[in-house]
């Protein structure tokens, strides 16, 4: 399996060069991405040039940085200077990033090679990558099915073996849910752990950037590089405990694993439920203490999310008015706004902007937005109480396996329900990961593990402990 350590060690030992690694990676993408459409664009020249720099440094006897020569793909909402960042939207089709996202600066400083930008739901609004203005992405396990979303492209790029790691963004599940549907690891760090500077904003109190990988160790290695206080993002914090993959001690002994009954609902796929229950049984067999818990307000996490997120999104997307961004139409100011926004935004974006504007409008603000904020605080109190009794909370990442393309596209609520288990993690800012834990209907199933704020290392350790005793994460679509 192509892992970060394997690649870097191979380059350091002289068994291969960064340029060879990158060329092989690009060749694979050019030959095989037609079936997947994970990538919107590859940055071939820059990637090869960056690889040569690594090779030169090795020749000069320099110690190579942590991610030296490792190809990484970035979601289309992450700013790479000089390259288009369209956030999956026509509105930004001509937008060329004038500066680097902090995560990009850090990845580059660590020697990672940015291979290209990946497909996503428009403005990160979606759970299937079908709302992208640039076409759909196919699930590498079954091309007639969705990869999940909104970070479907980055996820598929890892699942299809095009790159060992990729970055996505997660506002309501957009890293973890596709990871579950595509059988890879997807991590959403604690809110405030990773800088959002240079990420096209969806919901500013919920968005986080995080890695896709085949292994928990690789996810941890990427997190180590991208995490940490950033003066450009006032919501980042000085971490009391940084991620040090070598110090992770994966084990189940002494770990209290909470299983909320609210995560096993009617209407979820019975086979998915069984696979996740089996995964929890594995943890129990290996020494974890499984504790049944109840967090009643989890039942309303999704409606609360679909108030908070559209409200924030409607505010964040107000800037896309055709003046600086988007196509400038003629006419008066009002006509310009209407034409640019009418033309530049797709249906889901319009739906959420309208919902958000309504929620924040006079007469409705108290009933919806203020209420949702209060529910958020009440849910936080319940979850804080739970984390006194348990170390992590687990459950299914997704209630279903990957569905057919177009199946849920015209049914917004059906689509929103795909995130029923992941949104609470975002509205509380908790760290959460999805790890592959089996198959249902021959399609991947993900186990979701979350912990208290800034307890990301606990999440990684439990996930790594699970991977140490299972091999679901090493299955690939080509072997099936």
């Amino acid at each position, binding site marked *: 399996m192509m892992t970060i350590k394997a690649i870097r060690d191979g380059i350091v030992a002289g068994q291969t060069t960064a340029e060879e690694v990158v060329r092989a990676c690009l060749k694979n993408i050019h030959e095989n991405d037609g079936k997947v459409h994970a990538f919107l664009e590859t940055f071939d020249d820059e990637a090869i040039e960056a690889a040569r720099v690594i090779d030169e440094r090795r020749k000069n006897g320099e110690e190579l940085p942590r991610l030296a020569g490792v190809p990484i793909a970035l979601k289309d909402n992450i700013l790479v200077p000089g390259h288009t960042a369209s956030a999956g939207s026509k509105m930004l089709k*001509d*937008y*060329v990033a*004038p*500066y680097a996202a902090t995560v990009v600066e850090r990845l580059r400083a660590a020697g990672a090679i940015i291979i290209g930008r990946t497909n996503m739901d428009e403005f990160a609004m979606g759970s299937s990558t079908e709302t992208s203005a640039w076409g759909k992405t196919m699930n590498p396990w079954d091309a007639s099915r969705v990869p999940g979303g909104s970070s479907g492209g980055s996820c598929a790029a890892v699942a299809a073996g095009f790159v060992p790691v990729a970055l996505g963004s997660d506002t309501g599940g957009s890293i973890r849910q596709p990871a579950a549907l595509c059988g890879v690891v997807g991590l959403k760090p604690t809110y405030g752990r990773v800088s959002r500077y240079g990420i096209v904003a969806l919901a500013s109190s919920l968005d986080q950037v995080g890695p896709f990988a085949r292994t928990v160790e690789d996810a941890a290695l990427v997190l180590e590089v991208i995490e940490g206080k950033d*003066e450009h993002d*006032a*919501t980042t914090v000085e971490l009391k405990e940084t991620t040090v993959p070598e110090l992770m001690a994966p084990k189940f002994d002494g770990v209290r694993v909470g299983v909320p009954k609210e995560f096993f609902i009617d209407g979820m796929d019975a086979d998915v439920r069984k696979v996740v229950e089996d995964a929890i049984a594995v943890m129990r067999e290996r020494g974890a203490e499984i504790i049944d818990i109840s967090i009643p*307000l989890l039942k*309303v996490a999704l*409606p*609360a999310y*679909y*108030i908070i997120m559209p409200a924030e999104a*409607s505010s964040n997307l107000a800037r896309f*008015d*055709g*003046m*600086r961004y988007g*196509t*400038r139409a003629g*006419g*008066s*100011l*009002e006509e*310009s*706004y*209407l*034409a640019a*926004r*009418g*033309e530049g*935004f797709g*249906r889901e974006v*319009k*739906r959420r*902007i*309208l*919902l*958000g*504007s*309504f929620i924040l*409008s006079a007469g409705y603000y108290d*009933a*919806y937005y*203020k*209420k*949702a*904020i*209060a*529910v*958020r*605080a*009440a849910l*936080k*109190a319940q979850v804080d109480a739970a984390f006194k009794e348990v170390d992590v909370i687990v459950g299914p990442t997704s209630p279903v396996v990957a569905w057919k393309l177009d199946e849920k596209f015209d049914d*917004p*609520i059906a689509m*929103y329900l795909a995130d029923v288990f992941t949104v609470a993690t975002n509205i509380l800012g908790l760290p959460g990961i999805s790890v592959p834990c089996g198959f249902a209907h021959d399609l991947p199933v993900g186990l979701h593990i979350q912990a208290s704020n800034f307890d990301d290392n606990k999440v990684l350790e439990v996930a790594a402990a699970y991977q140490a005793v299972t091999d679901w994460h090493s299955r690939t679509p080509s072997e099936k």
Partner: protein
Amino acid sequence: MQIDIDHVAKLAKLQLNPDERAMLAEQLPAILDYIGQLQEVDTSGVDAKAYLTDAANVFRADEPRQNEALREALVAMFPKKMGDALEVPGVFAD
């Protein structure tokens, strides 16, 4: 719960074509019903701001920082400009 789509679209400066308007007229009420579930939740006595108590404002010294390359890149992307200024339709024009 009734939503006056035309009013909200005006607030949001969103132009909707007839198909979109029809689709939204059909879908938004169901979505509003769904999120309206929150009305049933008892949040009396909950301090909504309790969620934010750890947040603190972050300041930096009030010193100007110049980044000429960034400024040039931004100005280059203006769809219409007068010199280095973004040209826009008159705000107070009729």
